[in-house]
């Protein structure tokens, strides 16, 4: 069903909008107080148009979608109007909603693993979603299900008889799309439809959604945290920050010249997958709750251009150019400055340090194998992997889920045991940690340490930051005379004030927690750090802070890194050498620049193509 090239967008801007929200606000109502989720959201969606709502976690983008669908969770109330066909959807009763959902407005959710009922076959899920009238015979219904599956690119009719757990994530998301479209809605809302999918699957699913939209003339609201994805898919993009819209513009114009410091910051802080740039420009701080910044510009506490005028009133979106809305009150004064910053970011290339082949590698893995046994089923996670990491070297391992990259990381730090092969770390045979002497294990731990993906669960929630770090010091540097002072030093070295030692992890943001996790491993004074997706659980505006911290720690301490990631842009910015893994094997390796600019393995080339680009060819060239 995916056409070779997409038809031009069919929407006509002069037509009346199909969906419009005016002053939509959502509050969480508690017995003792009211918390704002979003304030005054004004959106318009024209027939056949695609709009994007882009925001970080906590911006309120998902709740906005749920309010439009009448699916707000208990305790949340919406105000304002959501106009659809001259009706205010917020006034509908639950019975009226049933006629509306699916038939007029459809919804695709983020997680294809929980969106489908695990006890229903896929055909049943879709046929249940089909219109009840007119009554179809059983055969006609089955034929319709097969036709619907074909529409989402599943030509294998036997999928109708399979259960969700028997399908891959991408297939599940396709079934979810088929179910959402079963009653031919005029508006489709896709809430992070590809976030849980692998990068190569992401492009296929986005292209599919886009092509069906074009074929049906449907309107689409795409909700995403990824500006690149929004630019690639949407006609217009709304940027949401801490519950307020701060900018709106067409994808091309917004990409060319963002007219709000936050959008600019997001674009600047995004590592480029195309080339190595001179450092990342991070936005300081983290996303506040809407009520913390009420009555002021929501971005003012983190904005470089914040002036007294910014905090006197909460600015609304205003037209600053034809088709462009921005909530920045200082825009006329700072517009030129912002544009200059953007140009500098684009020109500033960093010379790449030549990758030197290590003479005596710090980490040497030869032909590592790992087989997981679960009852009678066996899964081969590593199928003969050999890698080397030199002293002070930064090496990337890139792959999608199931490639075995995380298993390799866990084996290196002794959390799993390889089924076969030879591993040595710092000259110590580390194939089987259990057979080593305590002294060797201690030496290994002071050579290699790991930073985990999810900072929300890698710190013990019941202990204070100080006690977490003191324990790491007691083990990693037992002869340290003043542990309290060292806790302060460690915190300062990761850019946190020393008085954070008294806090519990719950009082810290995701980025701050990841800093603490990095401080904790630094206490062991390792020579090489394994970073397993160190920023993928963090908000976009915070990712660059952590990547910059890793870069500066390397310069200060001569650390080596092994980056385990699916993200080519991180690898491009932070590593000299690269291994590409696929299905438990290394399919390509070499200096990062060489591999990424002239990939030899088809899988590497496919990974590179999957990086979102705003050009229409990006989606059209899928498959």
């Amino acid at each position, binding site marked *: 069903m995916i056409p070779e090239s997409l038809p031009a967008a069919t929407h006509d801007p002069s037509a009346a909008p199909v969906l419009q929200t005016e002053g939509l606000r959502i509050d969480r109502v508690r017995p003792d107080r009211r918390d704002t989720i979003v304030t005054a959201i004004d959106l318009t969606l024209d027939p056949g148009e695609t709009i994007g709502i882009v925001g970080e976690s906590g911006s309120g983008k998902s709740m906005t979608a749920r309010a439009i669908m009448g699916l707000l969770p208990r305790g949340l109330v919406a105000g304002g109007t959501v106009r659809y066909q001259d009706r205010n959807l917020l006034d509908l009763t639950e019975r009226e909603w049933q006629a509306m959902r699916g038939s007029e407005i459809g919804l695709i959710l983020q997680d294809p693993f929980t969106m489908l009922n695990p006890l229903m076959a896929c055909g049943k899920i879709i046929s249940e979603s089909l219109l009840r009238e007119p009554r179809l015979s059983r055969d006609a219904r089955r034929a319709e299900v097969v036709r619907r599956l074909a529409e989402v690119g599943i030509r294998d009719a036997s999928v109708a008889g399979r259960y969700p757990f028997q399908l891959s994530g991408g297939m599940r998301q396709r079934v979810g799309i088929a179910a959402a479209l079963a009653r031919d809605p005029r508006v489709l809302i896709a809430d992070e439809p590809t976030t849980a999918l692998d990068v190569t699957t992401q492009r296929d699913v986005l292209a599919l959604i886009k092509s069906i939209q074009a074929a049906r003339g449907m309107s689409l609201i795409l909700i995403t945290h990824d500006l690149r994805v929004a630019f690639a898919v949407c006609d217009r993009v709304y940027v949401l920050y801490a519950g307020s819209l701060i900018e709106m513009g067409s994808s091309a114009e917004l990409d060319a010249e963002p007219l709000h410091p936050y959008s600019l910051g997001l674009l600047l802080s995004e590592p480029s997958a195309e080339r190595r740039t001179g450092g990342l420009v991070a936005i300081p701080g983290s996303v506040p709750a809407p009520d913390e910044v009420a009555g002021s510009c929501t971005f003012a506490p983190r904005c470089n251009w914040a002036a007294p005028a910014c905090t006197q009133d909460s600015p609304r979106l205003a037209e600053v150019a034809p088709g462009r809305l921005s909530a920045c009150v200082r825009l006329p004064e700072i517009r030129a400055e912002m544009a200059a910053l953007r140009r500098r970011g684009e020109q500033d290339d960093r010379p790449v340090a030549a990758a030197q082949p290590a003479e005596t590698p710090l980490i040497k893995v030869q032909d590592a194998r790992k087989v997981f046994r679960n009852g009678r089923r066996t899964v081969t996670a590593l199928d003969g992997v050999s890698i080397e990491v030199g002293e002070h070297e930064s090496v990337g391992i890139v792959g999608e889920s199931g490639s075995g990259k995380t298993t390799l990381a866990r084996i290196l730090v002794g959390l799993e045991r390889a089924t076969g092969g030879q591993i040595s770390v710092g000259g110590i045979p580390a194939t089987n940690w259990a057979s080593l002497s305590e002294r060797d294990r*201690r030496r290994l731990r002071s050579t290699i340490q790991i930073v985990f993906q999810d900072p929300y669960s890698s710190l013990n929630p019941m202990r204070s930051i100080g006690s977490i770090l003191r324990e790491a010091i007691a083990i990693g540097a037992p002869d340290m005379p003043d542990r309290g002072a060292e806790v302060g030093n460690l915190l300062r070295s990761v850019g946190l004030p020393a008085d954070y030692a008294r*806090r519990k992890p719950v009082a810290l943001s995701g980025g701050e927690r990841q800093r603490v996790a990095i401080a904790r491993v630094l206490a062991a004074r390792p020579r090489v750090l394994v970073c397993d997706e160190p920023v993928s659980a963090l908000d976009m505006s915070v990712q660059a802070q952590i990547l*910059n911290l890793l870069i*500066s720690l390397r310069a200060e301490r001569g650390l080596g890194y092994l980056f385990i990631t699916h993200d080519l842009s991180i690898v491009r910015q932070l590593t000299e050498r690269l291994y590409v893994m696929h299905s438990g094997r290394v399919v390509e390796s070499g200096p990062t620049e060489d591999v990424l600019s002239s990939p030899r393995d088809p899988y590497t080339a496919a990974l590179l193509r999957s990086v979102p680009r705003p050009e229409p060819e990006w989606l059209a060239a899928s498959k």
Partner: protein
Amino acid sequence: MTSADPVLLLGEQRLRAGARARRRVVSPVIWLAFAVMAGVLLMALFGALLAPQSPSAQHLAIVDAPPSGAHWLGTDALGRDVLSRVIAGARTAFFGPLVIAAASFVLGNLLGLLAGYRGGLADAVIMRWVDFMWSLPSLVILVVVAGTVGSSYWLAVAVLIVLTVPFDTRVIRGATLEQVPRPYVEAAKTLGVPRWKIMLFHIWPNVSPVAVANTCLVFAGSLVTLAGLEFLGLGLPPGIPDWGLMLSQNEALLFTNPLATIAPGAMIVLTAIAMNLIGDWLYELLTSRGAGR
């Protein structure tokens, strides 16, 4: 690094929000539950001093008397003051369950942590033993043990400990299994924290809400079970004031002095409910200390 001001500012706000959540109001029901438990504790410690009369003094002239100014809850079949016996009876109602709860807390937590964290052989052995203990009919065991060794209060307590530990073990093992795959445990492993420290200082604090709430349940449960055993005559000798014993001895007086059975029965129910409420409250309190927002 980054300019510290906004970071600090936001962190500060979050800290204040946390403090606000901690200072939330304790509901009057919980205050009442604590008052009941404090009263029972006082009666258990100083029962003889608090009782208006000697709980064992017999006044054979005024047997089965309904409530009066001299005997607020009337007298029993031997003319003993019911109020004094209820107050004195708190001792066996409180200390037996306390010992059971404390002992099974220690043993159940250790075994549960061991089974959940170590896995493998330790888990298999401990859990098969737990399964075996669960398959035993506990009341029959008590009757048989009391019948062969002779009935005694502390023997009943000891048997109840043996029967409760497997229950605790299973609960704690389940809670531990939930924590073991969490990255904070793996982070401690990769740092080289000794296994016993990971169990006691990393995992246990996160299991503690469940452990503490469960122990309150065990206290309430064994209070009721012990009273039931006394009711059946499997425990204390007849002369000792005890709520369960009073229930069975005064059953015959239901029509002459109903308070002689209702009062000890009501105390059993009140104490058990109060303990359960406190358990729920402690669970909420301990959970909000860490993962809560």
